[in-house]
């Protein structure tokens, strides 16, 4: 029966995948800096690409698996928030993640409510799209004609066109589709004489549905170009 013990041929395979390392040599970054670029954008700058963020590369960090093998006389390994060999930022330990909570959630919720209230009061109407489609329908053009009249007669307003999708398809591609829908709405409004500088677009893909049932009626509600009066920044 002893031959049976030789079954596990894969034992011989011993290629160590040095996938990961975590032991960081880097100094603590000054950052957490989400503001610099955004402030530039807010000042009317072009924004673009940050010139300062931590090193994301693997180079120089060759801490292997963090495993130490079995030992006939095993020494004690303490597991916890700062395991040896795992680095502080590794997904290895049971480290506590810091959560960035700046009160942003409450502020955003208040602004969303304000936008909704203002948009409803203005009587702005949304347009709807077919499955997989970003073409305006005749009904959609009709709706946008009356929206355009309101916008032109309220020239102080800043309007945001949100592109939305139903839950079918991938999250990522629906962001592209949502942008195409928002652009279709914006372009038609501009064609109707709305000044482009009063219009901005944003795609929410399928991430902010108006309706969450898995029905065609609900899907058609979510394939939408949604017009919102901007509040705040």
């Amino acid at each position, binding site marked *: *029966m002893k*031959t*049976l*013990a030789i*079954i*596990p041929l*894969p*034992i011989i*395979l*011993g290629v160590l*995948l040095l*996938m*990961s390392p975590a032991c*960081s040599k880097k100094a603590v970054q000054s950052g*957490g800096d*989400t503001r610099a*670029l*955004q402030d530039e*954008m807010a000042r009317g700058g072009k*924004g673009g*690409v*940050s010139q300062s963020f931590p*090193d*994301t*590369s*693997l*180079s120089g*960090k060759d801490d292997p*698996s*963090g*495993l130490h093998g*079995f030992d006939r006389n*095993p020494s004690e*390994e303490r*597991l*916890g928030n700062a395991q040896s060999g795992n*680095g502080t*930022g*590794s*997904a290895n330990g*049971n480290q506590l*993640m*810091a*959560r*960035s909570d700046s009160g*942003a*959630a409450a*502020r955003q919720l208040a602004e969303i409510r304000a936008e909704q209230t203002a948009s409803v009061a203005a009587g702005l109407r949304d347009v709807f799209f077919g499955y*997989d489609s970003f073409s305006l329908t005749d009904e959609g053009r009709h709706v946008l004609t009356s929206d355009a009249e309101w916008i032109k007669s309220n020239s102080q307003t800043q309007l*945001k066109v949100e592109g939305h999708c139903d839950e*079918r*398809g*991938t999250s*990522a*591609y629906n962001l592209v589709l949502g*942008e*195409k829908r928002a652009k279709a709405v914006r372009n038609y409004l501009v064609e109707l004489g709305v000044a482009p500088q009063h219009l901005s677009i*944003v795609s929410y*893909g399928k991430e902010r549905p108006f309706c969450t049932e*898995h029905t065609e009626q609900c899907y058609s509600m979510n394939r939408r170009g949604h017009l919102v009066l901007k509040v705040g920044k």
Partner: protein
Amino acid sequence: MTLRTLVLAGFCAIVGLVWIIESGAADVFLEATRPDFQKIPLAIAGIENLGGTESPEGRVKLGSRIEEVLKADVRRSLVFALVDVNGLGIKGGQLGAEPDPSFKHAVQNGVSVVVWGRAGIKNGNKDADVNMDGYVYDAGNNEVVGGKRYVGSTSVVRLMAHRFADELVFRYIGEPGIARTKIAYVSELGSARELFLMDYDGYDPRQLTADGFLNLMPRWSPDRRFLVFTTYRNRNAQDIDLLELATGKRWTLISQGGLNITPSLSPDGNFLAYSSSHEGNAELYRMDTHTKAVQRLTTNPGGDLSPSWSPSGRELAFTSDRSGGPQVFLISADGSNVRRLTFEGDYNAAPAWSPRGNWIAYVCRTPKKEYKLCLVTPDGQKRVQLTTGPGVDDSPSWSPDGRHIVFSSTADGKSHIYMINVDGKDLERITFTGTHNSAPAWSPAS
């Protein structure tokens, strides 16, 4: 003795095992990543309870919990076939002693590796540490290989089992194992979508962001310290941010007009690929993370998005609708040599290149207009549909060992996160709380 006789002996032993022990029978011949990979028969003879429970009000004893987690890890490793040795009277012994005579019963039943141990809080002292001792007997050499001794609070009890499972995988095939890996994902809070992190088996979810709006599609840095993802600045524009897990610090990497989506760091972390429409329509870009230089990779009136790096970092798979509906394309990392990879069906998107390089997983729309997972080889020669049935499947992400795929699906109504083997077996739902869990991203291995 020739190899042929050895293989024959092994085959007979496994057939014998299947005959004698019903449970585990189906496991023995499953593929790991090679069709001819035979799993190593492993038995867990028990993790003895030394005292104490996971929580003051909990009923599950610590040793029992570790045994349960360890068994699940061993099963999911796909390296071992878990053999049930209940009723064979197998008991562990002290480390350093001769192998316990009872091990021969396990060996006679085809078991190659026996694991046993003990865990708990000694003397039932609530403030004391949890201790776990685990030992390994290898039938090949008829010897006790050695063991591990872990100490920590009750909050790391599952981690003790995960580490031990990874040590087993490391000992037997030289890979770091996946039991300590994590999955980042997006979950709904109110109408907001925030980033979360959980263990690879769905336990211990933690909230990472609290912006109150949309945070989408996280991806890991290769050293597991950071996530890159899309976030919305004041709900009106998209940024690509970097989040440091240990500190919660965030950096905005990309802040410009239009879509800025699907960021993905190269396997060496030296490049960030992403899609942006700030110059018109969605195109692929590549930023050098050291020089910050940005190179545009695509120039096309269609939308290009969802770049996924090959393990070598020399190529990317991506989604493009340049030929109508979205399809999966390949491109060299310098922007040259674009070619279409998928041709079946009118909607193929969200490619994910396997860390072993041999498959690209993606979302395929079936003739019945269902969104399911498919696999295709990078040469396009072989294509298989991996999932079936109702629900929208999305966001495939590979385990670092290339044996599993995690993805989101609405198969059970609300969007949840599921795991499946690359051979289509062992579909397992891993999230049970939350109203909308999506966009899973499996961490690199430790």
